[in-house]
């Protein structure tokens, strides 16, 4: 799996309205002013197409920071192995 900084940059590039460098692993992505239900879908879509892991809304709701997301995906990938 890619490292957390690459994960953060790649996720950031999915958010059209977020300028480069604004997201860090410790950013609470829900605090992004533009955050709405579409962003939640963008995150699910990004993780599905990058890692073939299809998160549920409930799983997503338990995360706050980019690092939480990264760790959720890493655990899901480990479960798959």
């Amino acid at each position, binding site marked *: 799996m890619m490292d957390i900084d690459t994960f953060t940059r790649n996720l950031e590039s999915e958010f059209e309205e977020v300028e480069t460098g604004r997201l860090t692993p410790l950013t609470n992505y829900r605090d992004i002013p533009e955050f709405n*239900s579409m962003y939640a879908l963008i995150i699910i879509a990004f993780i*599905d197409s990058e890692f073939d892991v299809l998160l*549920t*809304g409930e799983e997503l709701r338990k995360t706050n920071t980019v690092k939480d997301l990264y760790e959720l995906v890493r655990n899901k990938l480990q479960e798959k192995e």
Partner: protein
Amino acid sequence: MPAAYINIIDFSLARNEITNVQLASEYPDYTADSIYKNSGVLKRFSVDKGCVCTDFAAENVSELLNKHKIDKHKIDFLIYCTEAPDYIAPASSVVLHGKLGLSKEAGTFDLQFGCSGYTYGLLLAKALIESSAASTILFVTADIPTQVISEKDPHLRFLFSDAVSISIISSEKKGYKLGEFIKGTDGKGETALRVINSGFNSPRNEEWYHQEGNENLSVGRMEMDGEAVFRFSVDVVPKIVEEVLNKNKLKREDIDLFVFHQASRIILKSLQRKLKIEEEKIYNNLERVGNTVSASIPVALSQALSENRITKNMNIMVVGFGIGFSWSATVFNTTNL
């Protein structure tokens, strides 16, 4: 057994064009730009309030039949796909038959399907042609989703659009040859996308009309769980693609163009990425038209043809998927285009 061909595909969009600037003036929380970023749609089209769908269909289908010089007396079957029936009974296809003045020898039936309706209708048309039960089929899709969307649901208003399409299917070796079909259903998806208070399950009453957001609705209200629809789409469509390829004994590289139901920008983008389809091999007109439900695939095919994205000797995969959940798909060959 005669093979089935779609000889003609054409469409009409509803008369009223609605831009993002117009919508932004109604919703102060959004700008025209943010509406585009949220929906991927620049403009959508709507019928007038109170429109009866068979009127919308009949007016446009008549014009399209005239445009293509189709003798309506030759039509011996009408398939009418809509989620906006005129009545619970009689069937809307019968009403449309009368409005179009088709032959009394023509059979008709309704197909109450949404996003998978076009490919389902083709599946049925192919069976009617191959069994010689019909020789010239008029397949009409007409949907008016704007009429069941509340003003309180901007995300739905941004996405959906009203349109009519016609397809003529016969054994004449002209146009798109229909390949083998696959189909499927997951009825557990009933609540992910539906029009509530539109039938016996939840009849409308006085209280309903007075609930916030229902005041301007006359029939029912569309509800969509965007996350559930997204998860269904990205989970099922890649499997459908493989299944259709296998059934038609084709490989991925044999497909020259993928025409998926134009569900939403995020679904189309995710499918393209997940299936690793090159941009030029996937058709996308969502920006210009919106999601026209059962008309989305024929509108896309018709526009792709006029833009020379469809030419002779191609294999085109068409995949309908959505409300239900329901899906169906096939491959067209254009050797006789």
